[in-house]
């Protein structure tokens, strides 16, 4: 990601004002040495909409600065000249209809003037017609799912920053918290329509360089669009508080040429065929455990923690014998499924119920259904892993065929 001022288009004089103002602030805050890495304004725009938004903000910022300087120029002159300590005698005026009409009307006219370009931009922003490609985006706690309906491709996109970096046990990488395992790949130079929704709570899909931010709301499909001018990697984040993992569900978009995009589509289709094949074979215990560990880290660890110890009061631990207390409704649900003893300890219940918890979720609790997110091999692996890790030694080995049978 570019972080310096030089990258911005030099054609806008207001940007220069911004830059000088920002530089002055940098000096004021005494962070001059660090400011090479600090960005003071929007990220570099790479779509027509982002350019227009940048331009609108320049206008608005300019208007605000002028008003501010004028009004407080008058006030500070008054503070300087009309002080009692200088022996200034107070005037007695307290009304002037003329001047009051002027300072009601002038701001109104300024507002009309800025509303015109704002409205034009808004109308363009809302026009999602004539798109060449449609991508469906679904928010989950706490990851994104992308589908290309016409191409038949779908995949999850998870944070790939290692937990050790977040916990400060390893040095943080350059793209700390802004990297994912499977970025969204989009072609440059054509209009792309996004259809955005959510499976659980409200999220918001935001890529600053595109000027796109749209809420992902369960039960609604919001539409927006973009057209990327420049190939590159663009990073954004979820912009609506969605629970514990809100800061940890970034968005990474790789914008590539249309030829590269076609190649990527072909490769993805081949991958999906291979993955489906995995669900039809019989796995060894070792393979299930190692695949299960990966699936657990990507899907379960956000709540149940990478250690499987959960979060007291909210997310149950997965270790048999551990005490757990939470809202009575949740405890009852766990007891009904045989996963909680009378004295409030976690226990590994029947495999049948374990499968139903993972596939259907537990209604009324934060445990979601993973039926749509994980294939048979993933489910088999993660349950095998859970029943033989975190101090559990059930020895159970679950095969994909068992999962397929209860789906």
């Amino acid at each position: 990601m570019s972080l310096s001022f030089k990258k911005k288009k030099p054609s806008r004089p207001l940007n220069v004002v911004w830059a000088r103002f920002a530089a002055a602030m940098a000096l004021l805050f005494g962070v001059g040495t660090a400011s090479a890495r600090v960005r003071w304004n929007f990220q570099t725009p790479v779509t027509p909409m982002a350019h227009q938004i940048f331009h609108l903000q320049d206008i608005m910022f300019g208007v605000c600065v002028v008003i501010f300087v004028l009004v407080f120029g008058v006030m500070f002159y008054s503070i300087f000249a009309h002080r009692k300590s200088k022996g200034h005698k107070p005037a007695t005026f307290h009304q002037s209809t003329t001047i009051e009409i002027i300072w009601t009307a002038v701001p109104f006219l300024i507002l009309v003037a800025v509303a015109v370009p704002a409205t034009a931009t808004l109308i363009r922003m809302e026009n999602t017609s004539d798109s060449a490609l449609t991508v469906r985006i679904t928010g989950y706690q706490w990851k994104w799912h992308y589908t290309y309906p016409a191409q038949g491709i779908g995949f999850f996109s998870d944070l790939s920053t290692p937990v050790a970096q977040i916990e400060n046990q390893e040095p943080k990488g350059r793209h700390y918290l802004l990297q994912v395992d499977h970025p969204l790949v989009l072609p440059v130079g054509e209009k792309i329509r996004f259809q955005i929704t959510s499976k659980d709570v409200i999220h918001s899909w935001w890529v600053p360089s595109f000027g796109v931010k749209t809420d992902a709301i369960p039960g609604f499909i919001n539409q927006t669009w973009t057209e990327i001018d420049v190939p590159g990697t663009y990073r954004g984040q979820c912009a609506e508080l969605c629970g514990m993992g809100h800061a940890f569900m970034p968005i990474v978009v790789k914008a590539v040429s249309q030829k590269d995009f076609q190649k990527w589509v072909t490769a993805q289709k081949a991958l999906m065929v291979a993955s489906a094949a995995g669900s039809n074979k019989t796995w060894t215990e070792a393979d299930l455990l190692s695949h299960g560990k990966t699936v657990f880290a990507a899907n379960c660890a956000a709540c149940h923690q990478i250690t499987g110890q959960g979060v007291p009061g909210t997310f149950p631990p997965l270790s048999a014998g551990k005490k757990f207390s939470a809202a009575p409704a949740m405890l009852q649900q766990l007891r009904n499924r045989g996963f909680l003893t009378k004295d409030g300890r976690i226990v590994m219940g029947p495999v049948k119920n374990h499968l139903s918890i993972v596939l259907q979720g537990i209604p009324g609790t934060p445990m979601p259904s993973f039926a749509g997110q994980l294939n048979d091999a993933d489910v088999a692996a993660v349950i095998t892993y859970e029943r033989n890790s975190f101090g559990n030694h059930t020895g159970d080995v679950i095969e994909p065929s068992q999962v397929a049978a209860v789906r």
Partner: protein
Amino acid sequence: MASAAATHEEHPVGLKRWLFTTNHKDIGTMYLVFSLLMFFVAGSFAMVIRAELFSPGMQIVQPYFFNELTTMHGLVMIFGAIMPGFVGFANWQLPMMIGAPDMALPRLNNWSFWILPFAFTLMLSSFFVPGGAPGTGWTMYAPLSIEAGMGMDMVIFSIHLLGISSVLGAINIIVTILNMRAPGMTLMKMPMFVWTWLITAFLLVAVMPVLAGTVTMVLMDRHFGTHFFDAAGGGDPVLYQHLFWFFGHPEVYIMILPAFGIISQIIPTFSRKPLFGYESMVYATASIAFLSFIVWGHHMFTVGMPAAAEMFFMYSTMLIAVPTGVKIFNWVATMWRGSLSFETPMLFAIGFLVMFTIGGLSGLMLAVVPADFQYHNTYFVVAHFHYVLFSGAAMAMMGGCYYWLPKWTGHMYNETLGKWHFWLTTIFFNLTFFPMHFLGLAGMPRRVPDYALQFTDLNRVASIGAFGLGLSQLLWVYVIYQTVKGGKKAASKVWEGAEGLEWTLTSPPPYHSFATAPTVK
């Protein structure tokens, strides 16, 4: 007079005085002390938040607890510090400013206050139940609030209690102002502080029940099988936001209009010149209140409203700049060619004027829908609302505190320390919140416990500023304590340029003032 006044001064002492009092001055004091306490409770949450955000990576709290802190910081500051603070000012000042002996409904007044400690005990104890306090942000958006732990229910019930307290307090204020003004004090002769509170009270009566209804719907969805906000059951998650912000935007003005009132008292006093454009000030305040009911959509431009609705909310929001501008211009015109002096209350008023305007102008930038898509839910918004709520509402209360404290206690505060408090607050406030504008523009979302590396430097600056800002407020408490304990005797008319009925009373005023109504010419 001596014997009659002596019996009037009698009141229970000790705890009983405060539990059973119906005196507007006692109740005002309790509101103010309570508000100050909550200011420090919620402020301490902010200190933990800023400590966590000092560096990238998780350092001192877990992500979920971080969300609990942001939620409770917002709820306690809004409902515990700012709103009761202004009610405290209203209790002390309104009867003295309109020449009334007390509030119109004194027992109701007592009850309005005493609901608060119980409500906040309930709200704050949600930290200690399984699942902890809600981690939904103070906005409590469904469906996140539907899936939260039982702490959410406690917050819902405490909001019900706070709503009852606010509505009762507001009714009391309306009744007092409309019925108990001294002979000759027509509506258009009322001090601006009285006017702003009258309008605020109507806003409270109008919108607190909406909030109560909305959180009740959340409660129903959580426990009683309804699906108001559950899409799977035919409900509508966006409906929650419409309802919440129909309350939420007038709520913003509930927190700022009384501040306008305080500033409108302070500036003429230290300019030694009457308030410029009194009538237009009244009309501007009323217009702002009216407009506050038709702008709520600007909090939710990204939910996918139709373009026509977005345009409507953009234009109506921009319109608010007109009456707000009128107020700013009037204050500056009041100072123009006055005879200015710069005691602590005036410093706070000028600080308010400059920094509130920064918040107002960033609000104007936020109103522009396409640009708002970029600002929405970023630190730019955090900067914006702290400029209007801290340097706006809170600093107006600090100014008002220094302005009227000599009247209330009968002692002058320490001017040097007062000025130190102002400058430390102003410098650290800007150090904390100005960099947040840049963080937001550069792409840092709000309500995150951890952030990408390019946001580190400005977050460090903000955290250092926040610790300074928090510590500076201890000085304020010390000055208040010192003034209550003793100090130079304050005259009846504490400030040379002060106008109004409260300055005709002794400092401190008698326990029961204006037993006989004064006449206003």
